[in-house]
């Protein structure tokens, strides 16, 4: 009985945090892109546009829900459902922290620890192509069809380097479950270099990490690989004919896939929830970061750029201070510091996603395929061979 209650609590927490992240990721993306392009981004709804995600949800819900007359209706409705449900499933096996004991009950900070976790993620990724492909085909629109075809070809091509590059950290970890992979990356060389897989001897996976991120961009259809929805060629690609909530489903699945791939990159290459430097000091990093953020807020409140900054920034500063105090309580640190490190690493990778979108131009379609098969695939293969050789020599 305990198991069900604890699982339910964990599911509720993970779901709430995940959904909030998805909603605000889009706000962060618009803000960061705006600042890259010397604009201010969403600013009208709420202080600094913070209520924008809520407004967007209402906008999408109240839009007219169109079904094209010559669309294959069953598959047209099935496609967004497949896309969003498969995108949201993967988060259930991501571990956010070590085993914790609360009220005499020991549990993992993870919904469920699957023995073949990494294969599960790959299986979900392999099947989620159908959402995009079906959407493109069932809309009965040439732009949609081209987008769907491009997407399926692209995802099959980039799955090869992605899968090959995942094998190398698995060779170092000697296990398929995410929890064991992360636990194999605990500890430090010389007392301060973390044993994350990008630094792990005998062969640091730094190239593997770069290849994984590139292939991950392509798998999630993000710029510079967003050929399935290239506006200047295909209007909006596979979701041209979708509106209202069905469009929101595709939108949400894209962001959920982004979060999943960054979480997997964090677990495989950046040591999951393990901190950057050893324990007694690293426990105070969250507090220090929140205090620093609070100081910045107060500084801007003293020198307001706009009139209302005088009132909004002190509020944010106080909120950051409250967070700093929460992360400073020793009993709570045990539960919250590892997820904080996990979130910090995944957040940094998500920021890279947005950064790349703001700065890199789109590939041409033949360049995209050429890049995957003649550069990325051999690189991943060479990385795997070197790792396997060195692991065999050392052991």
């Amino acid at each position, binding site marked *: 009985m305990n198991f069900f209650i604890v699982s339910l609590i964990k599911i509720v927490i993970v779901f709430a945090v995940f959904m909030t992240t998805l909603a605000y990721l889009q706000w962060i993306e618009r803000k960061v892109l705006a600042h890259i392009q010397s604009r201010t981004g969403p600013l009208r709804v709420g202080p600094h546009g913070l209520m924008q995600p809520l407004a967007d949800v209402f906008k999408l819900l109240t839009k007219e829900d169109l079904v094209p007359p010559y669309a294959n209706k069953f*598959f047209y409705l099935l496609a967004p459902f497949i896309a969003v449900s498969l995108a949201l499933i993967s988060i259930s096996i991501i571990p956010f922290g070590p085993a914790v004991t609360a009220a005499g009950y020991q549990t993992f900070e993870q919904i469920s620890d699957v*023995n*073949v976790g990494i*294969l*599960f993620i*790959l*299986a979900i*990724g*392999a*099947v989620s*192509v*159908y959402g995009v*492909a*079906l959407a*493109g*085909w069932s809309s009965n629109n040439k732009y949609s*069809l081209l987008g*769907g*075809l491009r997407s*399926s*070809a692209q*995802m*099959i091509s980039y*799955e090869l380097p992605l899968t090959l590059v995942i094998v190398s950290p698995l060779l170092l970890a000697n296990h*398929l479950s995410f929890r064991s992979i992360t636990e194999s990356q605990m500890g430090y060389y010389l007392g301060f270099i973390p044993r994350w897989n990008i630094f792990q001897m005998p062969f640091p996976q730094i190239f593997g990490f770069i290849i994984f991120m590139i292939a991950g961009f392509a798998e999630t259809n993000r710029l510079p690989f967003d050929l399935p929805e290239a506006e200047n060629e295909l209007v909006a690609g596979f979701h041209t004919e979708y509106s209202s909530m069905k469009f929101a489903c595709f939108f949400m699945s894209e962001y959920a896939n982004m979060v999943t791939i960054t979480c997997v990159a964090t677990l495989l290459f950046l040591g999951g929830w393990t901190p950057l430097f050893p324990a007694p000091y690293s426990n105070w990093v969250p507090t220090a970061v929140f205090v620093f953020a609070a100081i910045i807020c107060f500084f801007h409140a003293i020198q307001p750029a706009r009139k209302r900054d005088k009132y909004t920034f002190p509020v944010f500063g106080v909120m950051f201070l409250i967070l700093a105090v929460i992360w400073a309580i020793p009993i709570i640190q045990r539960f919250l510091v590892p997820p904080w490190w996990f979130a910090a690493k995944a957040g940094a990778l998500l920021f890279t996603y947005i950064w790349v979108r703001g700065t890199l131009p789109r590939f041409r379609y033949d360049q995209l395929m050429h890049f995957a098969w003649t550069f990325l695939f051999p690189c991943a293969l060479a990385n795997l061979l070197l790792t396997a050789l060195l692991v065999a020599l050392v052991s």
Partner: protein
Amino acid sequence: MIDSWIFIICAIVAVVCGFNLVLQKHPIASALSLIGVMGSLAVLYLLLGAEFLAMAQMIVYGGAVMVLFVFVIMLLNAGTEKASTKSWFAQILGLPLLLCFVGLLAYLVWGVLPPLRDVDFGSWVGGTAQHIGELLFTTYLLPFEVISVLILIAILGAVVLARREIE
């Protein structure tokens, strides 16, 4: 208790999807039914403790192979098939002959199979990636390598055929 229910549901889904695969007139619908069959089979493997096999089934068959099927169907833009005009022979004798054939097949398979036992879900260990890896590189090394070479030859053959067409 709960695994029996999961087994019953997935078995029913697999059989229904299998029938649907034959009955559907549109190739895409048939292909998706086949994915349904493979997905429910993967769950059955998982119930029996063959976790690696279940995931490989989803990645290789559910993912890679069927995506190529769907891709080709979309590329050729194959439409709904028309029902062929039935011959009087098929109309009268089709169903009885089919039943006879299935009965005969079931009888023969029944004779070959070992006597039936109760299945205890989750009691079998040996489906992990480690077990399968060990078996592939010790007991079944020769078949494994032979199949690898065979697949390599098939890939080369496909490349040669595709090249000739372009020239």
